[in-house]
């Protein structure tokens, strides 16, 4: 889901930066008001977790690979705005040091995986968890469903952004200038693999860690 340089035309990548920067600003403002120094280690761990979990490429036999992002899990444990910043930090390092995701696409990739990933994940989690107890099974189920939904919304958006390119950017002779596949190809390709496999892995990881936290440090879910 890391869009490389050259896949999004200037109009799209500039627009995605313009959409993402206000979310970074709101997240910074929220954290500025609520964050305490002793929380710093947890945020660093959250960002590091997002980075390393994305290195676990999950294969579709004979096909493509994908990965979980940890965005929902981090949002549940550290709060949605902290998760926006933490997952963004991971994506920025991936682009700068490892060429995973483009520099021009940092806005788009952070919007898809960090902003949408964390906020949708957290919203769905709160909706389902409602007032259930910290140690309840319902919290685990809420986390799993939220993670599944959130990763799939991220994938759908990525598919739409890529699929719009042949419509938006064409050469004089009508050839696509950037990502060449239309919506009818890009959206099903990205949506299906996440619906059928990667979303389930994201849900399982989220459920397992929530179960672990319930047993070992339930305060984190308070």
């Amino acid at each position, binding site marked *: *889901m*890391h*869009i490389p*340089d*050259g*896949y999004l035309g200037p109009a799209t990548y500039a627009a995605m930066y313009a959409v993402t920067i206000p979310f970074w600003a709101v997240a*910074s403002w929220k*954290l*500025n*008001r*609520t*964050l*305490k*120094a002793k929380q*710093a280690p*947890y*945020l*660093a*761990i959250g*960002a*590091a*977790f*997002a*980075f*390393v979990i994305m*290195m*676990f*490429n999950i*294969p579709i036999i*004979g*096909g*493509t*690979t*994908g*990965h979980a992002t940890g965005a929902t899990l981090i949002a549940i444990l550290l709060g949605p705005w902290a998760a926006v910043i933490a997952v963004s*930090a*991971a994506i920025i*390092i*991936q*682009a*700068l*040091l*490892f*060429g*995973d995701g*483009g*520099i*021009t696409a940092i806005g788009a990739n952070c919007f898809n995986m960090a902003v949408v990933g964390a906020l949708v994940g957290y919203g769905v989690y709160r909706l389902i968890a409602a007032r259930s107890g910290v140690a309840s099974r319902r919290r685990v189920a809420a986390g799993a469903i939220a993670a599944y939904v959130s990763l799939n919304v991220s994938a759908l958006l990525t598919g739409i952004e*890529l699929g719009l390119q042949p419509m938006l*950017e064409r050469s004089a002779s009508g050839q*696509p*200038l*950037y*990502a*060449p596949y239309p919506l009818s190809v890009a959206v099903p*390709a*990205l949506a299906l*693999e996440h619906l059928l496999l990667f979303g389930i892995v994201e849900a399982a990881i989220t459920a397992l860690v929530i179960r672990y936290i319930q047993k*070992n*440090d339930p305060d984190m879910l308070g």
Partner: protein
Amino acid sequence: MRNYESKSENKIMRNENRDRKKNLTVRKLWIGVGILALLSPLGIIIPNYLGAGGAWGEWTLEQITKISGFAPEGMKRMADTWKAPMTNYAVPGQAAGPVHSSLGYIVAAIIGISATAGLMYLLTRLLVRKDGSSKHNQQARR
């Protein structure tokens, strides 16, 4: 009076216990991240074993030329916008083969984890320092 003192002592002890527990949690979580770093080569070995390629929509210029039959002009111009020092999570110049690529992947994981955690820690410190409530906390502690 004595009752009050023992109560406040209890409270201090409880706070110390909580801090110790928090530190233990932080350490446990870091160990978890460390284990993930050591296991990270599974993220290249298993896909390789099962014949899975890269992610959809993350092809190189050569790959996309092969798949779609042409190299989009804009993509050609932009593909090399940035030259990352450790492209593909590999140590530059590492030898071929599963052992070297696994070791390179672990090195990349450790560097990436450190850089990400460092960046996040820096951002957090920046955000907290300006925070009125944390200043208030410091005064209250004194």
